[in-house]
């Protein structure tokens, strides 16, 4: 149950892509440009602040045969919510820096009725494992290699660094099912991202690809154990978006992405030895972006369509941004 929960939490990383939500254009004010028409990086001196909320439940997974199935053998249920402060600043028209500060709130519920017929008694035990607190902070620098014009698309490269600022080990351990879960992954990652975008007003098309490298880390995986070294499997992803202005205030986005993880290494064994192999997922993310002046509100639903050994339930993402 916990491993799967970790898989599901990892899928929230994918939601960072919603930072590319479309904008709305009122040409008279560059700060009111929409996701369709704004440049690929913030203009010089522009500062955007945003709050992004993500929520999902732990209900089903794609099993090793790719079928959506329920977790059997352990009846438990969980939810995951995160609220991320998103800060973006344009140093120049081509260079933008980003900081993402997440706050996480994860819960896993489990209950068992213990029946002892020899004593004619039964007892219901409730367990709730929570993980509240600051997550791993991400810092990014984006550089627009090619600026878009009528003939050519823009090409942007980004480098994300995620630092293990979140709590990496379980704390307040009362028993194997009651403790405070980690809020961070306990590892540093480097995410190299390449994106091309072209506007065909009122449409825009984006394609992107990225590779995320995980450095080795050390953490406690299960309560009561010692810290062990590990390396999470690197992640490769590729995808594209197709967005359209419906009117001056509303833009619709559609994104399809393919994500592939390499095998994790735990306790010196690869994930292949412990049964977690071949993780991948194809997501479809429709989004609605609603912009009035400098305020941008967006809603995204992330649907896992196909996958293997990953979460199979949709996530809801709501965000609010303001550009100064």
């Amino acid at each position: 149950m916990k491993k799967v929960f970790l898989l599901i939490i990892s899928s929230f990383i994918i939601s960072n892509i919603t930072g590319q939500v479309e904008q709305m254009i009122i040409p008279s004010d560059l700060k009111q440009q929409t996701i369709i028409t704004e440049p690929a990086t913030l203009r010089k001196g522009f500062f955007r602040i945003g709050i992004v909320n993500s929520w999902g439940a732990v209900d089903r997974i794609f099993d090793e045969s790719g079928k959506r199935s329920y977790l059997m053998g352990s009846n438990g249920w969980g939810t995951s919510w995160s609220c991320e402060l998103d800060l973006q600043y344009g140093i120049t028209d081509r260079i933008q820096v980003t900081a993402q500060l997440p706050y996480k709130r994860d819960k896993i519920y489990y209950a068992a009725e213990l029946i002892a017929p020899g004593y004619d008694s039964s007892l219901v035990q409730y367990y709730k494992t929570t993980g509240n607190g600051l997550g791993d902070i991400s810092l990014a620098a984006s550089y627009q290699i090619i600026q878009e014009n009528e003939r050519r698309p823009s090409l942007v490269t980004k480098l994300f660094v995620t630092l293990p600022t979140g709590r990496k080990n379980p704390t307040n351990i009362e028993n194997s099912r009651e403790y405070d879960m980690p809020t961070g992954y306990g590892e540093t990652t480097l995410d190299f991202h390449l994106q091309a975008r072209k506007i065909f007003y009122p449409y825009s098309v984006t394609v992107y690809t990225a590779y995320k490298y995980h450095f080795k880390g050390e953490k406690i995986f299960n309560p009561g154990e010692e810290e062990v070294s590990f390396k999470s499997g690197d992640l490769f992803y590729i995808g594209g978006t197709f967005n359209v202005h419906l009117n001056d205030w509303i833009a619709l986005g559609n994104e399809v992405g393919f994500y592939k993880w390499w095998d994790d290494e735990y306790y010196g064994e690869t994930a292949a030895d412990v049964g977690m192999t071949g993780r991948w997922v194809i997501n479809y993310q429709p989004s609605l972006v609603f912009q009035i002046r400098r305020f941008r509100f967006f809603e995204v639903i992330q649907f896992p369509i196909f996958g293997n050994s990953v979460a199979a339930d949709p996530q809801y993402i709501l965000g609010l941004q303001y550009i100064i």
Partner: protein
Amino acid sequence: MFLSKTISIITFMKRRTFFRPFSLFLFLIHFYQSPAQDTDVYGLLTERYVDRPINVHRGQLQINTGYELSVLNKKFDSEGKAVNLAKDGSAAMQHLFPFDVRYGLLEHLQMSVGINYARTGIRERNVWIIAYDTEVSIDELNEYKGLDNLNLGFLFRDPFDFKNISWTIRGNILVPLFNHKPDQPDHSIYTAVLETSYTQLSYYYRNKYGSGILTGALGTDLKLKTSNFSALLSGSFSSDLMEGTNIQWRSNLVENEFEYYSEEFNYKYGHQVEYLALFAYQAIDWFAVQLFACGIYTYGGWSEATGKKVGNRPENLFSGGLGYEILASPHLRLFQTLEIPFLGKNIMGSFVINTGISLNFISETYYNLFK
């Protein structure tokens, strides 16, 4: 099984606004004719939410679809007390995909056909039996999946065309076209013998979503409106028109292998009364917000699943919520609602997020034919 019918009827009853921005539908925007060609049709398609009649206009084809996520994390017991299912580890999610098509035969007459596809898996609390030298762990999953009954309906609006008030009478038949009988279960057992014997037993029941009973419904709506506000009051009564037949799967464990057999039984869901009060405010010409309260009361019905004709317990649920609609284009409306259960008895209460789109087209030829 009862839960599925309850949810499906709520889905049918509510005046939802959908939001589901599939890229495929965007192409349909180009089918819209420019406003200068036919002001009447354009005007009808871009009517504000509060001004719109309850039914679709003459010659108007409306296609509604979307996605409804229900978080089944609460249930109300026989005394009306809310029980937290998440705490039990037995909460669930329901994914429902509604689809319905409405057509305006006349200005005051609408026909509709609709269907839902849904899927949910409801877990039971884990049970551990600790006997003398044996421990048994039991999990149970009840999955409900499939197509609901086909919903055919007619709606008749009053012909008086008062400016600020209108009412309708509607009738619906829910036809059980699809298989509602559950598939054979897929239980599993694992036994390990060490110092004590340990057995892991997992029950997996594979039920269908549809009710399997021909159901009829009669309802009425009353809509009042002012310049920027409207209020809609709806009520309906539905009942099974005949008994249903279903099967119940039983299992035997013989030499650590499951053997299954089914037994038929009759049942009826009984009668259901539904009501809705919805208040809308037109904030901008293309954006409206809604506040609503709705409820259902179910009574009657029985089941012979246990061999005896045992009556169903009456159920009721009262919920409330809010929503919005965006008129994205003359042909495309996006909407979303959020529903929260407040009170209930003997029923599951779920937190529902409904997102969808509504595509609208008017045939000029048909529209002008009756002008």
